[in-house]
């Protein structure tokens, strides 16, 4: 075997696979963030805490004996009403003020603080590590990958495809895009804009919760788990274009691959500054991101 092929098989490919797992995970979290921004024009600073909430709810429910597979379905269903109530009860209160961006950002920032401290109060500050639902690993083309990570890539891809299908190919998605494009016009055509807004927020939050359940066996569950993860998700949303689903997928894969490959050549601690540096440069030269907004083009 040539040296280049060996390098690929033993160094580059495993690293890219690790990057891919992280990429799918980040995209799941970033999807909710971008939908909420695209539709409501709200930067949800508490999104990382909703991701953590999903993981903690799953943790609590698994202690009473519910199996992982059921939780995968149950947790997003629990998160939906939570998100709906937060949107109707909190965000709508400042939604119609002149300074919507700043005030909703501040409000969700406060909510995130409260949630994070509440997790610490209820579950303690130490990390919990749920058992991996699928043990073992698979080997393909000489590359070893733990089964659960393979499962995560497949399920994650399916969820991303399903979200894209709902938004771009169903009547519900058309209503969402119409409300994002022109709120008043959509309302006068009979779209229940209020419910679409609250529903989209709930949906985004439920996606974050689902990501929390899926990722808990890999990254552990702890009160500040959302904080580290959300920075990457924000970067992905900004680079991809705020409100763009395609953008999130492309930027999510791109950035995590850059991070994974860069870590091979320089110390991994520098990969974070590089990724955030890309975000800053992107905001400077093309603040709208790679792709346009939801409902626009």
């Amino acid at each position, binding site marked *: 075997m040539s040296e280049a092929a060996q390098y690929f098989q033993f160094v580059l490919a495993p690293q890219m696979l690790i990057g891919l797992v992280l990429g799918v995970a980040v995209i799941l979290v970033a999807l909710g963030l971008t939908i909420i921004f695209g539709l409501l024009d709200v930067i949800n600073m508490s999104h990382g805490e909703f991701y953590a909430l999903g993981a903690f709810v799953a943790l609590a429910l698994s202690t009473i004996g519910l199996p992982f597979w059921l939780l995968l379905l149950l947790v997003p269903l629990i998160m939906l009403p939570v998100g709906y109530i937060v949107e109707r009860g*909190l965000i709508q209160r400042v939604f119609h003020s002149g300074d919507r961006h*700043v005030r909703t950002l*501040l409000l969700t920032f406060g*909510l995130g*603080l*409260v949630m994070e401290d509440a997790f610490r109060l209820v579950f303690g500050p130490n990390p919990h590590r749920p058992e991996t639902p699928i043990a073992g690993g698979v080997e393909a083309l000489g590359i070893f990958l733990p089964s659960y990570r393979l499962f995560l890539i497949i399920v994650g891809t399916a969820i991303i495809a399903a979200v894209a299908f709902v938004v771009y190919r169903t009547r519900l998605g058309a209503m969402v895009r119409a409300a994002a494009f022109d709120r008043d016009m959509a309302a006068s055509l009979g779209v229940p804009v209020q419910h679409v807004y609250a529903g989209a927020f709930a949906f985004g939050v439920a996606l974050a919760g689902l990501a929390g359940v899926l990722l808990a066996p890999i990254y552990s569950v702890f009160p500040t788990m959302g904080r580290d993860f959300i920075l990457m998700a924000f970067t992905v949303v900004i680079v991809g274009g705020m409100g763009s689903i395609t953008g999130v997928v492309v930027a999510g894969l791109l950035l995590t691959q850059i991070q994974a490959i860069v870590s091979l050549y320089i110390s991994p601690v520098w990969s*974070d*500054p590089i990724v955030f540096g890309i975000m800053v440069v992107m*905001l400077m030269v093309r603040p709208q991101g790679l792709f346009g907004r939801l409902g626009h083009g």
Partner: protein
Amino acid sequence: MVDALTRSMRASHVLVAILVSVSLVIAAVGVAFDDTFYLRLATEALIFAGLALSVDILLGYTGLLSLGQALYFGLGAYLSALVLMVVPSFWAAIGATALASALAGLIGGFIVNRVRGVYFALITFGMAQVAAKIVYNTRALGASDGLIGVPVIDINLGIVTVSSASPAGFFLLVLAMIVILYAFAAYLLDTPFGRLLIALRANEARIPFLGYRTMTPRLAAYVLAAMIAGLSGALYPMLRGFVSPELMFFETSGNAVITVVTGGAGILVGALYGSALLTLLKSVIGSYTVHHLIVIGVLFMGAVIFLPKGMMGSIRPAIERMLARREPK
């Protein structure tokens, strides 16, 4: 003749005067009881009030939310610590910080002022994050441990010499410094430059038609905010004897934003009262439970929803009316 803006600024001065009087009483009581802990805590509150003041210049006057003001605060703290470790001189540390934060603010200002609104918040956040990670990973700056062993210094003020180890003396010095920063900012914002900023916040597209540039005042406001944050940060190692990368993290920037919004944005004095209130809350609640963030978070959310003008922003109009009555007709 006094217009509404000057009068509202004077109302802020009245509130600052009240705060200074209370601070002097605290200092006197602290000296009487030979206290160290509470005076140090109050000094820290004042230092973080300086950081909040810089956030307010951006949020309250240009309408731009900075989520990365800790970048300049941390820069000031680290630079001051480094200077003090080589030359134990207050004025050398302050001078170096003023220059460096102005320069950094100028460079940062060119980067962040390319965008508006929510993108501004995110780009400041991203920039501070890059800087914090770099400091966190740089061995020469102590990496995750920070810099320890900043010496106690004697600050020569011409007439008297104050030691940074003296609780009451250093408290008064920091008080004076923050009041000077406040007065400087308040003076600038009451000049035509300040009015231009307010006009920019109201309607940026119209400003060029009135014959003004939009970039210059924005940049000037950003540099001013960076300098105030940097100079406040420079005081931190003198108080604590160390600096840590946490000073540059998002928590620090976020706390400053909470301080300003709770105290009241766009009135400068809100930052000072907000910092006093939050420090008080943290130490009072902190003596009962470690979960003070829940209380502060709920309070902050309440302020965002019910009190958009903040604590002092709701009180100030009363003082304005009082001042208006006393003016000669």
